[in-house]
């Protein structure tokens, strides 16, 4: 069902992009006759690419997902890497922009600047997409293993591409062929890095390079029963396991990037809304994955008396703690870039703590198979299926609706009020989530017994 919906969504996105690419001049001639389609696209291209890259980081699969099966078959590792890299390109994040660019080039660019510029435009857009795509491949396959190197490589590639585009006027500037060639060169270089990253990631020991730290003795948890013990275990899970660490790093990076964007450049969207989605990245990913990650590891522990209540409270505490900690980091950014935005930030963090975190944790119990983990975070369809998506979408709709309906100031106050109410009701949320977890564990056990 979800696969069909996703397929329909893909077709819709591609068809809409293609139609928009073809009809943009006509649309603008009706709505904004003084505005040139070429200017609009030229100015929107880089920001759109930034948003697209963020979208990829949030929603695009880790390319090596499911590739382990092929490592035991007589297939060259590099071939496996090439296959999964190519497979990873088949995404709406590449298809939709290309679907826009080709008809736009065929009609608008060709009519205005000739065939060669139209071809250069398409090649340039493809190269920009390739840079964005390969940057995310490198980011997702190497961030957990080599954080410093990964941030440096991806940052340099994106900064280099932006510099080329800005210096040359972009793929619709005076020298589109040169721009396309330069961005293409960056894309090829980054593609080679991405390929190497995937090959590296296909080794089972592709972990952090630094030496493992010695285990502190005497803090193993259950001498301090209850919530603290589960928090302790969670901390160890996140710090010692590559995948959760990758999710946390990803979420932190996204949060700070969006927050910096909100503070620095501002936007037509209310700042509080941007900040909700910035802080919400952590709130939602920590919330969504708190139960699935932990329950697989701690299933046996949950049979201890009082453990389910402590477990759920620990999950909520961890997600709330992570959100507040990120809020504090954002506050540093706010004080540096836009001191007046602290109230927006406070409203956003409150809303995330009181609404997004509990909805995300509760939502993760609504999936049919909650004890599973996927490689994407935020609305991961593989684990979350439709009901959790709907729960999160409803919370997101409230976040969007309040500032839009009430205006920035009233909306911010309303969000803070709703968030504060939700935060005060966290004990009730915890009880509801505990009941869901308990019911689901019994359902899973019953299914297991019936399979025997």
């Amino acid at each position, binding site marked *: 069902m979800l696969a069909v919906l996703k397929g329909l969504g893909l077709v819709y996105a591609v068809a809409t992009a293609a139609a928009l690419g073809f009809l943009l001049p006509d649309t603008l001639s009706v709505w904004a006759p003084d505005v040139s389609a070429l200017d609009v696209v030229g100015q929107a291209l880089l920001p759109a690419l930034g948003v697209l890259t963020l979208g990829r980081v949030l929603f695009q699969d880790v390319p090596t997902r*499911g590739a*382990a*099966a092929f*490592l*035991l*078959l*007589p*297939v*060259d*590792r590099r*071939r496996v890497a090439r296959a999964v890299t190519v497979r990873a390109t088949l995404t709406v994040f590449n298809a939709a922009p290309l679907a826009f660019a080709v008809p736009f080039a065929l009609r608008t660019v060709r009519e205005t600047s000739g065939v060669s510029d139209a071809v250069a435009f398409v090649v340039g857009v493809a190269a920009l997409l390739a840079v964005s795509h390969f940057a995310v491949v490198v980011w997702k396959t190497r961030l957990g293993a080599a954080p410093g190197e990964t941030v440096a490589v991806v940052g340099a590639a994106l900064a280099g591409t932006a510099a080329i585009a800005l210096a040359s006027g972009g793929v619709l500037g005076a020298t589109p062929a040169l721009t396309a060639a330069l961005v293409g060169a960056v894309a090829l270089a980054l593609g080679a890095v991405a390929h190497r990253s995937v090959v590296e990631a296909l*080794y*089972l*020991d592709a972990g952090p390079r630094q*030496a*493992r730290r010695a285990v502190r003795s005497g803090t193993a948890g259950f001498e301090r029963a209850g919530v603290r013990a589960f928090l302790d275990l969670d901390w160890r899970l996140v710090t010692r396991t590559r995948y959760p660490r990758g999710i946390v790093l990803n979420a932190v990076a996204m949060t700070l990037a969006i927050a910096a964007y909100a503070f620095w450049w501002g936007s037509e969207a209310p700042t509080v809304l941007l900040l909700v989605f910035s802080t919400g990245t952590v709130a939602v990913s920590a919330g969504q994955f708190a139960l699935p990650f932990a329950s697989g590891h701690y299933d046996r522990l949950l049979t201890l008396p009082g453990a389910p209540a402590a477990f759920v409270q620990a999950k909520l505490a961890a997600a709330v703690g992570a959100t507040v900690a990120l809020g504090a980091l954002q506050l540093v950014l706010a004080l540096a870039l836009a001191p007046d935005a602290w109230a927006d930030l406070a409203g956003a963090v409150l809303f995330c703590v009181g609404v997004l975190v509990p909805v995300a944790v509760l939502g993760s119990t609504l999936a049919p198979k909650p004890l599973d983990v996927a490689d994407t975070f935020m609305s991961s369809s593989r684990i979350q299926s439709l009901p959790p998506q709907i729960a999160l979408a409803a919370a997101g709709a409230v976040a969007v609706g309040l500032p839009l309906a009430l205006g920035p100031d009233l909306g911010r106050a309303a969000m803070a009020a709703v968030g504060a109410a939700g935060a005060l009701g966290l004990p009730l949320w915890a009880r509801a989530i505990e009941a869901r977890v308990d019911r689901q564990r019994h359902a899973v056990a019953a299914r297991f017994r019936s*399979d025997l």
Partner: protein
Amino acid sequence: MSHDSSPGASVLATGLVKRYGETDALSVEHLAVAPGEVVGLVGNNGAGKTTLLRLLLDLIRPTAGTVAIDGMTVGRSPAWKMRVGAFLDAGFLVDYLRPDEYLRLVGGAYGLAAAETDRRAATYAAFLGPAVAAGGFLRDLSTGNANKVGIVGALLPEPGLVVLDEPFANLDPGARIGLEGLLRRERARGATVLVSSHDLDHVVDVCSRVLVLAGGRIVRDTPSTPDTLGELRAFFAGGGVPA
């Protein structure tokens, strides 16, 4: 059959070291497995059995040393992979396939036609059992049944070298007996087999040679004789570390 006749060895590991941080997970100065040998790896948890198999299969990279399979250095070119059939755990299965689809995928990778793969798979029907034959997705099978499919996937191409990591684990008693039969069949076929296990009886029963690992080193290398089981039991009763 000689243990240390390196020329013509099916598997040859030289100066093989795998280090995690400050810890030596494995350190094997010299290991040669002759063609046709069925070698069992035994050892306590963490002794290095799985690390050794993963190094032999190029799933992890050695800190030092080399591995050669049929004279081809592992990691340099993929040609050696055609000679090897391996199964480590259910994580190496394609969980969204059905058993027959997975086996056809494996057969195809080794250049077998679908009909030939099906014909060979049919010879494993008794081992696979009815639950696998029912045709559900691999992700929905129990661990034992999923492992059976993986084991058949390793044997079905009739490779020169078979590598199995704890294949007896999670299998029901009938399947364990069935697997013993399959390994004997491999031995009769002349295949080289490397199998790790905690089940001393099965290892001694099936293997022609037993390697004991402790602390990442091969501490005992002995042919499997009627006395071997007793010696191994005495060794592990004493903690599984050399005196």
